[in-house]
Each structure stands twice: as C-alpha cells, then as structure tokens.
C-alpha cells in the first residue's frame, strides 16, 4: 500500500536494426505484472514492473530514427535515468557504434545514468550462426565503463526482462521526495513545480505547495 511508484526514463541507443525496438516490444508485451496493458502514445512506451515492494514504471523512449543522421535532440537524453546501448552480436560494426554511444551518454546525459550494454540476437548463435562480437570483449567494455551487461534475444525473449529488472534494481527506489505528488490524493504533480498539462484544475497546483 505504502510502496510508491518510481518512474524511470529509459532511452534506447544503438545502430540501426540491432533490435532496439524489438527488445522493447518483447518487454512491454510480456505479461509479468498485473498491469499488462502497455500504454502507447506518440510519446513513449510505458511498462510497470514490480520489484519487491516497489512498482517501477519505465518510460521507454525510442530514438524514432532521429539518431540516424546524428540528429538526436538534447531532450532525448535529458533526465534519462537509464539507457540501453544495444548492439548485434553478429555485427562487429554495431559494437563499435555501441562504444560511441556509451561515450556520448557519458558526455550528454545526467551523471548518475545507469547504462546497460546489451548484445542482442543471441538466438542466431544458438542456432548455429556465427558470433562476431566476443562476450569477453563486451564484458571488458562494461567493466571499464561501469555498465550492466546482458546478452539477449528479442526473438526468444531470452534475458530481455532481466535487462529491465537489472536496471530497476540499480535505481534508488521510492525516494520520498518523488512521491509527494502521488500521495496528495492522486494529483498528478511529479516533482517540484511541474504541471501536467493534461489535467486541468487549480487543485493540481495547490498540491505543489505553490502559495502564490
């Protein structure tokens, strides 16, 4: 009852066609919380996960293709608490690109961002295809840069949930200062003075303690 909901903004990065969107689809279409309906807007996908007492709500931002010509906006990284840097274990080039994105995140994103390095498409190797990025190489990068590391298959679902659970576990949950809005009778004020434009009415702001 008292366990709050923590929202985590998570961004996806990685070369084209490595399976970023597939990983998200696998994750949000999976039935592992009571809230199984993923919400889709033009904005982002959300998925709730229960981790112990806590409910973690992932707000997942896909690149929408803007990274293709190096045109991601600062807004994309802003306040992201977590990032998935995805590569395809059968495409060495995509691993080089992953290194680039890790560097970019360290430069552009908030300091405490939790980054998971994700080698996708392991099913190809399991079914006899050729692996082109050694697990050790990726582990080394993860070690050096302080990243979580997973090898996944969006196709079979292998390890996909583990990626998100792993991130959820590393995020400091239920900080009381983030809960104030929700405890105030469900008024949708997330933090400090933020106003939700979709909910009109002066009640919304009274909760912010704005006393003007």
């Amino acid at each position: 009852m008292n366990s709050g909901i923590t929202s985590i903004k998570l961004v996806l990065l990685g070369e084209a066609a490595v399976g970023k969107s597939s990983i998200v689809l696998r994750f949000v279409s999976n039935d592992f919380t009571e809230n199984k309906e993923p919400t889709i807007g033009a904005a982002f996908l959300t998925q709730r996960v229960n981790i112990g007492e806590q409910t973690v709500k992932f707000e997942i931002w896909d690149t929408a293709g803007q990274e293709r010509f190096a045109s991601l906006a600062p807004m994309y990284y802003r306040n992201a608490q977590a990032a998935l840097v995805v590569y395809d274990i059968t495409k060495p080039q995509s691993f080089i690109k992953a290194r680039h994105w890790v560097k970019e995140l360290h430069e552009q994103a908030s300091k405490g961002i939790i980054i998971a390095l994700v080698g996708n498409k392991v099913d190809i190797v399991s079914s006899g295809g050729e692996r082109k990025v050694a697990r050790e190489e990726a582990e080394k990068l993860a070690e050096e840069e302080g990243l979580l590391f997973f090898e996944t298959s969006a196709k079979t679902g292998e390890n996909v949930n583990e990626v998100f659970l792993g991130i959820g576990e590393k995020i400091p949950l239920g900080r009381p200062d983030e809960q104030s809005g929700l405890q105030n009778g469900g008024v949708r004020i997330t933090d400090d003075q933020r106003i939700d434009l979709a909910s009109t009415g002066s009640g919304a702001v009274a909760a912010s303690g704005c006393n003007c």
Partner: protein
Amino acid sequence: MLSPERRPSVAERRPHFLSFSSQNGCPLVVPHLAGIEDPLPESTPDKVDVLIVGTGMVESVLAAALSWQGSNVLHIDKNDHYGDTSATMTVDQTKKWVKEVNDGKFSNCYTNAKLYVSAIIGSGDRGFSSRDFGLDLAPKILFAKSDLLSILVKSRVHQYLEFQSLSSFHTYENDSFEKLTNTKQEIFTNQNLPLMTKRNLMKFIKFVLNWEEQPDVWESYAERPICEMLIEKFKLERPQVFELMFSIGLCYNMSAKTPEVLQRIRRYLSSFDVYGPFAVLYSKYGGPGELSQGFCRSAAVGGATYKLNESLASFDPSTKTATFEDGSKVTVSEKLVISPTQAPKYSQNIPEQKYEIHRLTCVVGKSCEEWFSEGESAAVVVFPPGSLKSGNQNVVQAFILGPGSEVCPQETSVWYLSTTEQGPRAEMDLDAALEAMETSIVRESSSDLENDESIVQFGPNGETMINSVKLGQSFKEYIPRERLQFLLKLYYTQYTSTPPFSVVDPSFFDINDENSKKLITGASDNGVLYTAMPSAEISYDEVVTAAKLLYEKIVGSDDDFFDLDFGDDDDVPIHNANYENAIEDDDDDEDNDVDMNFDVNRQGTTELVGEMEI
C-alpha cells in the same frame, strides 16, 4: 493544375499505415505501437512530399502535423542543434551564432549582435560550463488557455516537456516594481486599492470576459487607444490602466487599439486558474527551443526524417528538385518550406522583414527570488512607456528565469529584455531597463558578489577575441556598476515581417506561391514557401496560426490539423476543466485559499461569485 476545392490530402491519395481510418473526417487512429515497427531507411529518401528547412517552432509544429497526417516529410536544419529562430542555446552555441550574425549569414534576419561572456563561463575549475545555460533566441511564455497548449496536449508532445507556473508579473513605476495584483483575491484584498477602484476594476473584468458581445460599451472606442475607454467609461486610475494594458495585456505602447487590447486582457484572465492560480506557464530547460525539439520528435515518431547540419543550396521548381550543399538531391512532390534564416545562397524571394525587435539577454550572478512568487522560478517585469530614464515610448518587457527553471545554475538567473522600439533609441531603452532592474535587485538582496573581471568580446564587426581580455576602457559602458555580476550579456536586433500585435497574415504565404508569382531568373529559391520570423509577441500565440496556414497551403485544408486519436485507454482529458471539481481540497493546504473570487474561466456566465468580502 490544383483545383480551388480542397485537394485530397496526402494521406488520402496515398495508401499509408495511418490512413486506413481517415475517411469522412474521422480522426486518424494511430495504431498500437506506431512508429516503432517499421525499420527505417538507411539513407535520406530521394523523394518526399514536403521538405522543411529550419527547425524553429512553426516549422516543427508543421512537420509534426504533416507527418501525423501521412505526409512524407524531410526536415533539415543547417545548424548542429534544433530550434533555428526559436533555439535554446548553450553559451558556446551562442558564441557561434553571434559570429554568424555578424558575418551576415542570416540574410538580415538578425544584425548587430554584441556578446560579452565572463571568463567564469567555460573556465573549468571554479566556473560554469557552457552547457549549464540554455539561452533562448526568442523567449516565450505559454498562456494556460491557448491554441498551442491544446495542440501540445492533443499531440502528447507535452509528455516530453515539463512546465512550471509563472504568476509574478511586475509593473515598473516610480522606480519600483509593483507586483501585479492578479493572483487570487489580491485585487480585492489589496490594502492600497480604494473600494471604488476595486468596484470599477471588477466591473471592467466582468465586461472584458465577453467584450465582443457588448459592442455598445467599446464600439465608440474601437479606433482609439484603450486607455481613453478605461478612464472615461470605467473610471480606472492610471496604475490600474497601466497594469491592465502592460502587465495583463502585455501591450507595447499607449496607442494600442481598444479591441486588440481587450482581446489580450481576456487572454490573460481566461487563462487564470485553468491549472492553478496563474495564467501563464513556461517550459523547463528552455522555451521554444524545447518545444521545437518536442514537436520534431513527435514528427519523427510519425515518420519524418531528420537531418541536422544540412543546408539547402537551391530549388528548381520545374523539376521540383532540391539540391543540398553536400550535393545530394531530393524530389519534393508537394512543397518546400524554408525559414528565412536558412534561405539558400542567391535567394531573391525572402520576404521583407520590416520590423525590428531589440533584444538584450543577460545572465547575472543572482538568483533573483525576490521577484518570484513563492515556489516559482520566473517573473515578468514590464516597463511602461515613460517609466524609464530614457523616456521610453515603447514598453520594455523583461522575462526572468531563475535556477529552478533549469536554464542556469544555482545563484544565477537569466534576464530577457526586449522592446519593439525601432532604431537606436531601442538600445537606450534596454539599457535603462537593465539599470533599473540591476538597481532594484541589488537593493532588494544583500549578499555580496565580487565584480566580474575578465570578459571575452565578440564585436559587431565579427572580430572575436577568444582569450579573456581585461575589461578595458573601450567597454566601459558595460562595466557592471554596484555589485551585480554579469556572466553574460548579449545584444541583438531581430527582424520580422509581423507587425506588433499581429499574427502572421494569410497573404504572407501567397507572396512566393509559384501560381501567383512569376519566377525570378537566377534565384535559388523560386517556388518555395517562407515561414515568418518570430514576432515581438512574448507569448506563443502566433505559432499555431502560422503553422495551420502553412498546413492548409500544403494539404488543401486544415480540417485534419492534429486530428489525432491515439486509440488507447489513456485518453487525454479534454482541455476544458470542470471548475467545480477543480478545486479538490487538499488537506494541509487550508490557507491556500482556493475560493476564487471571480471565476474567470466560465466564459458564458459572467456571474462573479463571492464578491469582495473585504
């Protein structure tokens, strides 16, 4: 070739994943998981419906509207960042921009940029970094009841953004900052207002909420300045007249005509209490630059292709081919839309930008909470005509953002000053307003801050002194007096085709229509549509109007402009609050009087509940 009738929209003419339900004006249903199932093409398309050049507010709203309608949009910007004329820039980006202005790279959309940056910024160890700041080229505030706000909610772009309230409006008079009596019952409880004045003010507010239906009251003043009506008809005194005209109405000078001012006063009052006891919001991390990014992302989700660092070289209207500076080409089957700042070389069709807006942006070493309402991080200060030492005839408007807005670090704030005064007087007015603000904040706050010592200059002739130079005699006039530390000062003149008080005129977009004008030989921009530069207006009010006009020009009708249905349960509430329920009491906030004395939002009923219980 084009019928004067509504032309079928791109969506109707071409099978597309969005168009399956869009017969007979049903809203487009965005399919579940839209935008993430299609693998995207590897290279820029070689054929698009619409090419948009420049990622300013209007262009970005247009790109999103077209993409969701089913048009295939390529949206480029010559800069390495989003925003163009609406950009929110770091200090380094600002430096680069200033240099480009002074090199004449913006086709006279901007001139005379002067930038002074303290060496504290970018100095690493003790200082601030360039990225700690987000400076808007055309700062804007958002009225709670406005067309842009509805579009933000409808398109769900608001989910990308964070908004904060701004309830603190000050009118500068007699050397002091009078706080606007706009919040809650301040109008009625204000000790300084005589009872008679309060009554008259109430009478006026009641009238203005549906002034259009009462022509008998204002018709005889239609062509006259509104102050005459306020004084003669409503018996208001000068301070109230000034507040109504300049703080609430955000007018530029005394000659503002009655209907346009009534419109602007109502804009404020009807925005009041939509989200709370304030009329205005602004976006965190930067203004129009953030909103542009939000709309661009929305457009990308809707299928638009984005490419920064790409400039247009020319357009050939006969083959409908656009050529870029890097030599690549794209066929544009519908329209090419360009921001005047990104016009190609050898352009000859850029609309005339007749009106000057003079801007002065400062970053100061004080957070200026003194000017903000409790719990807020922003304020607006207006300097009415005649209130400044310079004898200003036009208003100077100042928009102040503190660290809570996340556009500047702790212990600093950003001041945006602007005026519609034309010519050399403008800068004198800006300086006078700055001086008044400086004096006031130094007086109001007591903490000591050391003087800034080193300054980097970017002069109007393009010279850049990259290394710190000591603040020399030649810059004496910019030596901060007293103890207010200036981290950055930027003067520039912006030009616009939109006169004060106006939004862009529909005929503006006919200027360069290939059907209505013969082509100029040798011009690289025949047959393109230019967008308008931002006007002097401090609100976003012109943006949707301009984007809609362009949309209509391209699609043939604006019927399905952002006619979106995301087809999920999480339906966006209709932006029309039920004010009875709006004020859900929340326990420990008892003193936060939630009874509004006048319910300005109930348009139809002008009944003013619970009057003046003083």
